[in-house]
């Protein structure tokens, strides 16, 4: 391999590390992505042009065509698709990567099986690539809705394990005998594809991001294996990076969802962790965590805080003031919306917020703040319920019908902090929590706000 190419690969590897590193911080993430992309481009161009092979022009044309076609399609899909469809897209692309690895393996298997080592790499590349490919497609289908229900396969566990064992056995046998045998090859391929499907099919849609991350990690490993095959450093290191980072990321995502990796993978067989009081008929609720909520507010221009009785119960008045202060220092425009009957006595919120020295000027009455929700980026509802319940507008049968409420629904995003899905004073459901703009930040107000503050401090 020419020195130039080596250096290029080295540089690409470094960009991968630096890029991933920068992707881990909101401020630098975009730059990180660009850096890694640049490195990748360099590696591709280098691979095509720097070598000492005699390559007929037609091959160059084919490569060029393939790259052109793939780039244009990839670009178009990525740019056109709606923001909400992003995760499924990632899954799709990931599947393509896996497929690519499999195809490489298939081609190489017919040519290059000189050593056990090579056979091992090729065979495992094919299997892993195939699993990723079919698994990713299933995940994609689940996310975009084409595969709606959780499909239960009878005797799933046994079938699953049988397929897995067969694959391993077949692969081992192929490595052992060494030679090229198309039958075995396609059998292996099919086995991988089936296993990928079996693996993802029983996992619920909400857990898909975790699965995608895991499959992504697998693609990385497939790439690394191919790298070993070609003794190609950039593939090796790049693939391993993605592989190990992907595993850690998967675990982090599970943690953020308060689950374990095994409960995700075998989740469909264990009990689901319902939130007490959640009402299925009103739709689903979206949970969030302190870190996400903090980032949302950090990048907002206008934030309105809606305190309610829960703030008093949690005695979180000091922390909420701290939150307001830190947001203000970050250039966010923060106000408190005080509903006249928030809390349990007239002026309850005033007493509370005066105690923590919140500037009186930041407390805005309902009638004055309601028109302002329209251009508010984030509303943070803390321990309030009835005073933001749209039933007061919509539901004549409700005991609060006719009561004026804070129109938080008009804001761009709504974060609601409370401990559970339990009702407030009036004892009624609140549709707001099921609103697609709403994210629930469960937990005691004091603890949740404290987390928010420390997340914000670290940004």
């Amino acid at each position, binding site marked *: 391999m020419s020195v130039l190419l080596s250096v290029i690969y080295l540089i690409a590897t470094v960009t991968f590390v630096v890029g991933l590193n920068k992707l881990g911080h909101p401020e630098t993430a975009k730059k990180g992505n660009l850096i890694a992309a640049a490195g990748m481009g360099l590696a591709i161009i280098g691979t095509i042009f720097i070598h000492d092979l005699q390559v007929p022009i037609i091959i160059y044309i084919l490569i060029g065509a393939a790259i052109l076609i793939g780039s244009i399609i990839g670009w178009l899909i990525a740019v056109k698709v709606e923001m909400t469809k992003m995760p499924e897209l990632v899954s799709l692309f990931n599947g393509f990567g896996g497929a690519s690895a499999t195809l490489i393996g298939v081609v190489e298997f017919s040519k290059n099986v000189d050593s056990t080592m090579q056979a091992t790499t090729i065979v495992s590349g094919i299997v892993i690539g195939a699993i990723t490919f079919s698994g990713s497609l299933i995940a994609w289908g689940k996310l975009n809705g084409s595969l709606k229900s959780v499909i239960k396969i009878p005797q799933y566990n046994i079938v699953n394990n049988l397929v897995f064992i067969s694959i391993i056995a077949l692969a081992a046998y192929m490595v052992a005998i060494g030679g090229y045998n198309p039958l075995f090859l396609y059998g292996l391929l099919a086995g991988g594809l089936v296993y990928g499907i079996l693996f993802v099919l029983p996992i619920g849609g909400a857990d898909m991001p975790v699965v995608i991350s895991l499959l992504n990690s697998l693609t990385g490993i497939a790439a690394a294996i191919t790298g070993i095959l070609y003794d190609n450093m950039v593939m090796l290191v790049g693939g391993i990076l993605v592989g190990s980072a992907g595993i850690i990321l998967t675990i982090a995502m599970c943690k953020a969802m308060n689950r374990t990796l095994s409960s995700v993978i075998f989740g469909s067989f264990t009990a689901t962790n319902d939130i007490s009081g959640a009402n299925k008929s009103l739709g689903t609720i979206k949970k969030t965590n302190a870190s996400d909520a903090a980032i949302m507010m950090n990048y907002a221009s206008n934030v309105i805080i809606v305190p309610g009785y829960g703030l*008093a119960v949690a005695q979180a008045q000091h922390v909420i003031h701290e939150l307001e202060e830190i947001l203000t220092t970050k250039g966010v425009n923060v106000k408190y919306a005080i509903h006249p009957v928030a809390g349990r006595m*007239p*002026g309850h919120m005033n007493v509370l917020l005066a105690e923590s020295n919140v500037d009186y000027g930041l407390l805005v009455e309902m009638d004055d703040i309601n028109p302002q929700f329209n251009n508010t980026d984030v509303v943070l509802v803390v321990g309030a319920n*009835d005073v933001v319940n749209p039933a007061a507008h919509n539901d004549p049968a409700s*005991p609060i019908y006719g009561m004026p409420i804070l129109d938080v629904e008009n804001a761009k995003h709504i974060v609601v902090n409370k401990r559970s899905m339990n009702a407030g004073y009036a004892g009624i459901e609140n549709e707001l929590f099921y609103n697609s703009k709403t994210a629930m930040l469960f937990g005691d107000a004091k603890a949740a706000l404290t987390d928010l503050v420390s997340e914000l401090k670290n940004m």
Partner: protein
Amino acid sequence: MKIGILKETQKGEKRVSLSPNISKQLIAKGFEIIVEEGAGEASSYKNSDYKDAGVLVEKRGVVFKDAHVLLKVNPFDEEDLKLVDKGQVLISQLYHKSNPKLIEAIASKGATAFSLDAMPRISRAQDMDVLSSQNNLAGYKAVILGAYEMTKIFPLMMTAAGTITPSKVLIYGVGVAGLQAIATAKRLGAVVEATDIRTETKEQAESLGAKFISVDNEGEESEGGYAKEASDDYALKQKEAVNKSLFQADLVVTTANIPGRKAPILITEEQVLQMKNGAVIIDLAAAQGGNCEVSKLNKTVVKNGVKVIGTTIAPESVSTNASELFAKNIYNFIIHLTENGAFKWDLEEEITDETLIVKNGKIRKN
């Protein structure tokens, strides 16, 4: 529709049922308003303020004659009723459960009467709920009055001349007034304890920084937000649980009421005799008979060094704010009862149904 504001006649009362500011808002909605001369004086509203708001200022007789709707803070009395005519609509606090005679008198006049204190305790009625708005101020002022009367200060102070221990404040009844009393005493730095028959008030009291004294409660349920009368057994248990705090307290504020009944006796004379020398009791339930056995309405009784002040005067003493809030309640109530400036009562509707005590001479509630 002409709305008449009457001057309050009860002794010590400083409030007025409608402020110039709110009158103006009603006029903007198409109502006409007449006010009795001098009605707003004690709340620092001059006749000229009313005039500037577009209100007619008239003699008492004229108001009674011209107005369709008559507003007062306190119950209409005999003098008032003499001037009331058939078809007039009276709005004020009537305390109809404890005032059957008054209700009959109104009915015999063939008039219609809404009682503001009968307002149901539901969220959407809160902006018409005068009990809430006035008791809230009462809770604040009761503590201020207590602090004024005491020979100790509220907060803990560690000074060069020694440490002053914080005053201990005990609140009976954690309703609207009780909660505000807790908040105010707490703000001033006192150590606050509170008790109530309704168990759900524990969390509420604690949310304001008070320690709640729980009394074993079997079956003393509340009804529609109000307390029921307590059993003797409960009363006994309550004394046991509270006595230790009571005998150490520097200030006691009692706010316990049961709608439509005499207020429960929560502190007996015997208990008062065991209290600290120099302690003060503010009995906000004095008008309903008092929560303390020895309290007398509008009097300060000193028993064994303990000052017992029976009062309702508290909200009146912050008449400026009290009148503003009362007026806003009335405003919301009138808007609720009317459509395009004319009455339109939906008797199926809870608020109208509960507050309409006498309709064209027929008694609906008692």
